[in-house]
């Protein structure tokens, strides 16, 4: 067997063919090298404005585009008829397209997300019932870590179609407290007590000023809303400390937060069954 190969080798490996092979290897090497360099440059330029995810996508895209073109050029240099390959690729693309509709939809949604940037890695978002910290923004999906340390993968298509709340987009956050006080309480005095508590809590912003709203006359209590602002990093601590301080101040001033109440009106004097004589 080796003798057969050695005997026919001079006919196959002509100088012209060897030269073409060498050229094709050179084309491939140059193409991939240029793709790598171009990808890195593009990633560096894009990263500052569009973030890491888009930069990585651009880097890989440019690399494989240059690599793909260089493969075609190398094959063409070797004398292979590209029309057959392109025809087969077209048929394959149609078949893959039907099979991967969902994936393609996710990829396109992922591209829109990367360009639109409603959130970035590190933000806390809420989508539906899921709330967590964004770990990564990939082409097909977004990965979250919930506050109880669960890993959640959300398809990009769902991120585009569903209303999404970014809890950490703005620097400030407002805490709305719904407070019910007894009907016997003096509303201006309650308002003053709440404002005093807010003034003494250093996490509660002086400006924007706390907001007091008399919501209305509830079934069991006077319904009030007291809204205060805080730096978003202090939101949770303010929520805890402020409510405790309000409770303490209400206790100190004797302001009652009533339990749900019902008043019964009897149509006539109540009748009690006669007691059994022992």
């Amino acid at each position: 067997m080796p003798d057969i190969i050695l005997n026919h080798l001079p006919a196959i490996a002509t100088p012209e063919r060897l030269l073409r092979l060498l050229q094709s290897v050179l084309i491939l090497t140059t193409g991939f090298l240029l793709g790598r360099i171009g990808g890195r440059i593009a990633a560096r330029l894009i990263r500052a404005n569009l973030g890491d995810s888009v930069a990585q996508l651009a880097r890989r895209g440019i690399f494989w585009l240059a690599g793909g073109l260089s493969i075609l050029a190398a094959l063409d240099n070797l004398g292979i008829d590209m029309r057959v390959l392109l025809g087969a690729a077209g048929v394959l693309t149609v078949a893959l397209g039907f099979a991967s509709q969902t994936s393609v939809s996710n990829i396109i949604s992922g591209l829109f997300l990367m360009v639109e940037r409603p959130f970035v890695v590190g933000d806390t978002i809420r989508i539906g019932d899921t709330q967590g910290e964004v770990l990564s923004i990939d082409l097909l999906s977004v990965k979250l870590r919930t506050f109880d340390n669960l890993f959640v993968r959300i398809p990009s298509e769902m991120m585009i179609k569903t209303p999404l709340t970014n809890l950490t987009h703005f620097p400030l956050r407002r805490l709305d407290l719904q407070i019910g006080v007894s009907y016997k309480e003096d509303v201006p005095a309650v308002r003053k007590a709440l404002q005093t508590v807010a003034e003494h809590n250093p996490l509660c912003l002086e400006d924007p000023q706390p907001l007091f709203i008399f919501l209305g006359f509830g079934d069991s209590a006077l319904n009030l809303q007291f809204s205060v602002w805080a730096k978003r990093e202090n939101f949770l601590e303010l929520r805890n400390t402020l409510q405790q301080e309000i409770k303490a101040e209400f206790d100190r001033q004797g302001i009652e937060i009533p339990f749900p109440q019902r008043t019964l009106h009897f149509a006539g004097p109540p009748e009690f069954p006669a007691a059994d004589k022992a």
Partner: protein
Amino acid sequence: MSRTTARRPSRRRASQAPAGQWWWGDFDIPLGQSGHWHIGPLDLWLTHLAGEWRIGHRLGEEPLANDVRLEIPLAGPVPDTDVIWQRFGFRSEPDRVTVRPALADRPVVVKPDMPLALPGGEALTLYMSSPVWIQLWHAEDAARPLLELPSWRLSDTWFGPSTRTGELCYGSRSRARLQLGEVEVLWARAITAVTIVNRRHDSRPLNAVKLPIPWLGLHVDNRGRFWTEVVEVEIPAEGGTEVRRTERPPAEAGDAFLIAEPRQAEDRGRLIRTFEALLA
């Protein structure tokens, strides 16, 4: 403007400190001993143990408390209730602690006691005070203080056109006054004068003034009162704001000398942008 070098706190033992005034400087606390500083609303304790310092602090209820007491070394035990303690370990713990005053680490927003407007073509000077910060240094060549505490914890506040853009500042409950005599002169507060000139024809409301504290230096006069440089704000006729900082505190500060450099280096562009949003 030329910059004068901040004068380093002099080496002074507690027995040499005039009572009620000089609570800052170098203090020697031998091993096993403690020191106590009562500076307005703030109580500070430092205990020197083998290989460590323990530093405790407690804030009082009254922001304008003005008494100053030093007890170094502390005769009695350190308190253990309502005090927040921190421990610092050293390979070889120093005997000497340097206590230095500093200004706030964020701008401070101060409001006039009543809404105020500056008519066109007029000028005024507003005087305001802000609490100083207390820094504890363990070594002369340390890059940063070991610990830094405000003498009074101011409330957070937001200064900006909306809740989306602006800057987090401190809100001062003490009010901006037109007369220096009406400003509380306290051993743990620094007085800042802001001169505003309105060259426009229309009145300019002055609902709040944002003191650019991190860009100001801290000075002290021979009575132990703290001052900053004067901030001069000019509202030109064509609009905008021009802001300057003087080299020295106001004339009322007398021979005050610089004791702490500004926290923020003077970056001209950033300074103007910050100062542009000085008035609300």
